[in-house]
């Protein structure tokens, strides 16, 4: 027949918890009580630290800040679903995920106060620093996954995170295409929070889902309720398992919502309605997850109060330490231009230090 159908494709959406916190038991992931609680606590820490940093920023004590409130279920479970020995290649809007990967509260405070030192993860050397050039981190994950494989670490995968807007970048395309061709064990986790700064998803792409973009690369794709911690966990876990077994990359679209401003430099009232925001408030991922845990009998108000108190005191302590001031070498940028000494750089360092002294002298 001359007009043949030569391919058919479909896209699915996974959700496990409904808005009341009721779980679909058939799809329940295999998570221990401890794991569930760790996840809940991590999401809460992310939320509380986000709020505190916003507060500090508003007081002029931090620089421009991206906030992530409302998206905790879209990234925290992903970290639980991978291993410390896997690579994590994030973007800039997943505070809780970074804390789960071993970054400290101090890391965040330093970085958003303009110190590169905040990028140094003290615990995990398979977590790349924040990436700001949209989409550009995706190929890094492909390369890391490939490198692990080539070096004989058959079990290692790479998880990378990016926003809905970033899927429009050429790098998204090139990375997913490379991953497909190289059969690289990568999980591409899109945080579809409906907006890229002011730009809504429908101005970003005419495709109805991000998940269906996987079809262009012949790789797995799935959409997941991004405010459902269990569904995100499950989707990432399955993708990681498949990747470890040599079954290639997966694109996961976590549908969520950016509850606050893009960054503290942004005024969302210019481009979106309070009603829209309110409609998403009902879907709050932490509330929903808490309802589930409470139903399961592994969480209660007392534990909640204790958790909040503990987190608050941790944050207070970190802020206090941070506010005592950090002593940081002024000429450190010269240390990290190259890994080998270069005369021209050393000459400039000397000139820099001399100028600095003169500034101090002359005020």
């Amino acid at each position, binding site marked *: 027949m001359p007009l043949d159908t030569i391919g058919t494709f479909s896209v699915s959406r996974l959700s496990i918890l409904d808005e009341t916190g009721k779980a679909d038991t058939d799809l329940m992931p295999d998570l221990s009580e401890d794991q569930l609680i760790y996840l809940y606590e991590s999401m809460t820490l992310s939320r509380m630290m986000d709020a505190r940093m916003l507060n500090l920023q508003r007081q002029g004590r931090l620089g421009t800040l991206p906030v992530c409130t409302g998206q905790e279920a879209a990234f925290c479970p992903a970290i639980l679903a991978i291993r410390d020995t896997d690579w994590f290649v994030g973007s800039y809007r997943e505070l809780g995920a970074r804390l789960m990967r071993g970054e400290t509260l101090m890391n965040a405070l330093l970085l958003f106060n*303009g*110190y590169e030192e905040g990028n140094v993860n003290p615990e995990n050397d398979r977590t790349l620093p924040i990436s700001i050039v949209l989409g550009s981190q995706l190929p890094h994950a492909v390369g890391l996954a490939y490198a692990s494989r080539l070096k004989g670490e058959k079990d290692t995968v790479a998880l990378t995170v990016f926003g809905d807007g970033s899927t*429009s970048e050429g790098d998204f395309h090139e990375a997913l295409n490379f991953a497909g061709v190289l059969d690289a064990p990568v999980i591409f986790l899109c945080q579809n929070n409906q907006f890229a*700064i*002011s730009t809504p998803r429908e101005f970003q*792409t005419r495709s109805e889902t991000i998940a269906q973009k996987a079809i262009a690369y012949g790789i797995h794709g799935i959409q997941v309720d991004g405010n459902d911690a269990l569904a995100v966990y499950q989707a990432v876990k399955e993708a990681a398992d498949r990747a470890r077994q040599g079954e290639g990359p997966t694109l996961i679209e976590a549908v969520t919502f950016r509850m606050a401003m893009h960054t503290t430099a942004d005024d969302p009232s210019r481009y979106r309605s309070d009603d829209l925001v309110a409609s998403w408030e009902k879907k709050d991922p932490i509330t929903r997850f808490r309802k589930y845990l409470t139903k399961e009998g592994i969480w209660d108000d007392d534990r909640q109060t204790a958790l909040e108190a503990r987190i608050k005191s941790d944050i207070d302590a970190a802020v206090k330490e941070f506010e005592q001031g950090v002593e*940081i070498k002024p000429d450190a940028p010269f240390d990290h231009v190259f890994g080998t000494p270069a005369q021209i750089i050393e000459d400039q360092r000397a000139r820099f230090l001399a100028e600095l002294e003169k500034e101090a002298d002359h005020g």
Partner: protein
Amino acid sequence: MAKINMVQALNTTLHDVMEKDSSVLIMGEDVGVNGGVFRVTDGLYEKYGRERAIDSPIAESGILGTAIGMAIGGLKPVIEMQFSGFSYEMMHQLEGNASRMRNRSRGQFSVPLVVRMPYGGGVRALEHHSESKEAFYAHTAGVKVVIPSSPTNAGPLLRAAIEDPDPVIFMEPKRSYRSFKESVSPKDYTIGRAEIVRSGEDITIVSWGAMMRDTLKAVEMIESDTEFSPEIIDLLTISPMDAATIVESVKKTGRCVVIQEAQQSFGPASEIIALINDQALMYLEAPVKRVTMYDVVMPLFAREMMYLPSKGQIVRAIRETLEF
């Protein structure tokens, strides 16, 4: 006359040009409904709708590439790179197409478009938001690179860029967006022409962009205790460079300081020095002094002000050159 800042000057110009010329449109990330992250395009979406004020997908090469087509097709797109640090995604469209279409087609097609981009440091921003890479664009034949320095020259230069028949990279010093206001009287600026903002005899001082204002302040600081007669040049166009104005000045003064925000090596100051070398070496009574950022990755904001040329540095460079 009311005083306005640079953002207002640019915004007013865009409103004015779009009203008079229906072939002008704006396109970029968040330039429409949001009016641009710095509000330079504020109000254009409300007036001209999505057809002429396009919130594009996040794809810098796509933005320039599409604009090239629009320009060949008879429109005059004014596109925005949200920050110059995200403009490298479109280098291949610039080098490979925008800059070459006129030559490739022997003039059958041209690409009249403007790429606006905020650039430069000093606003306590995140990584990639503080660089000055005008030299990248200037090293591309067929591209014009323009940098205004004040509310007064920003509007006329943007208008000239839009009216220009070639691709113009229009770099806006974001530190100067709102930091000062001027009462703007209409004045003509020509792309390719530097401005002698002050005539003098003793030393030629060349700068552009946000450094211009620091340079003027540094000169005032010197004047508070030293009598001297500086000739101050605002470069305004980085490429094609107005060699004649610089060279004539140096022939007169015999001394020169160039203040550049970009990293030291391979920046515009080097080109200025090369032009002076070519045409006025024998007039020099001292080495041309360049005051620049260092050849390091632009530090995050905790350290950035230590790395950008300071007024003190400019003062010292001028004094040393005078005393050489």
